């Protein structure tokens, strides 16, 4: 199978990101450290989640790795070497946003 059919997008790891960042991150914009493309996290390409041991978020334009999240029973580790910046709204809809 063509690997591209397996990819999801950042929306599919919204719950995981919410656990780490404590509010919704899908509408936050991320800039790729590789090509500079800017886009919402919900539109970036996601691999390896939820079936794998972690989540790999890649740039929707150039497929550079933006974020790598690995999770064990007690810890999350987030690597963000490929991301230049994230831009997010201050306290987005605290009553109705994500969260557990």
């Amino acid at each position, binding site marked *: 199978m063509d690997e591209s059919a397996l990819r999801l997008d950042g929306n599919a790891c919204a719950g995981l990101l919410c656990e780490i960042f404590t509010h*919704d991150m899908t509408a936050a914009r991320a800039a790729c450290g590789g090509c500079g493309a800017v886009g919402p996290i919900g539109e970036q390409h996601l691999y390896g989640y939820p079936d794998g041991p972690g989540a790999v978020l890649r740039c929707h334009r150039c497929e550079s790795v933006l974020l790598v999240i690995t999770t064990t029973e007690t810890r999350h580790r987030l690597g963000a070497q490929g991301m230049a910046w994230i831009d997010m709204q201050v306290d987005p809809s605290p009553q109705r946003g994500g969260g557990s």
Partner: protein
Amino acid sequence: MVEETPRVRSLVLAVPDWRGHRAGQHVDVRLTAEDGYQALRSYSIASAPEDGQRVTLTVERLDDGEVSPYLVDEVRVGDRLELRGPIGGYFVWEAEKTAPLLLVAGGSGVCLLMAMLRHWAASASAVPTRLLYSSRSLRDVIYRDELGRLGAAGDGLEVILTLTREQPAAWTGFARRIDREMLTEVACPTERLPLTFLCGPTTVVEAAADLLVELGHDATRIKTERFGPTGG
């Protein structure tokens, strides 16, 4: 519970402390086996925000799935599920938006868009809205009766089906995968700045999004949500 198609079931959950959701959000469902093994999957919320603490999840059975066969075949009225959510703030539509709305669904991708359509109907929105829904056959069309009613009401919603594998004898609608000609016919003119939400299998969503951009639609007004190779 509602059996939508042979493979798809809607679960109506009573969630007493539900804080409300926005159309397009999902929830994570966590199942824990007796030995402590846990599986977590994200499901679309198909109900409108107006439904309050009754939250509907529509689930398609993936035969090799860990969670969906349980939710489609085994869960019974009265069972309790562990939920986390609502989740997601990007792929959402709210009735205050006034731009014409184009919703494009592949297979069970319609479940997430259904929340938007139900929100559209419950808020008596005047936004001209079209749903283009690609399904294998008429039998596989989820929410068939409700979509038929909503589309026939004359309130500004048009439901356009394309049946890709099998069509009834008298079928006069589209009978192929979503392509450029179909999107040209269905999408409203680009100068009216429609807002587009695409949801379905990755290949379907990406191909349709690329075609819309080629047709001159503003890429920043097209939101996509990919379900992976099989959908659901």
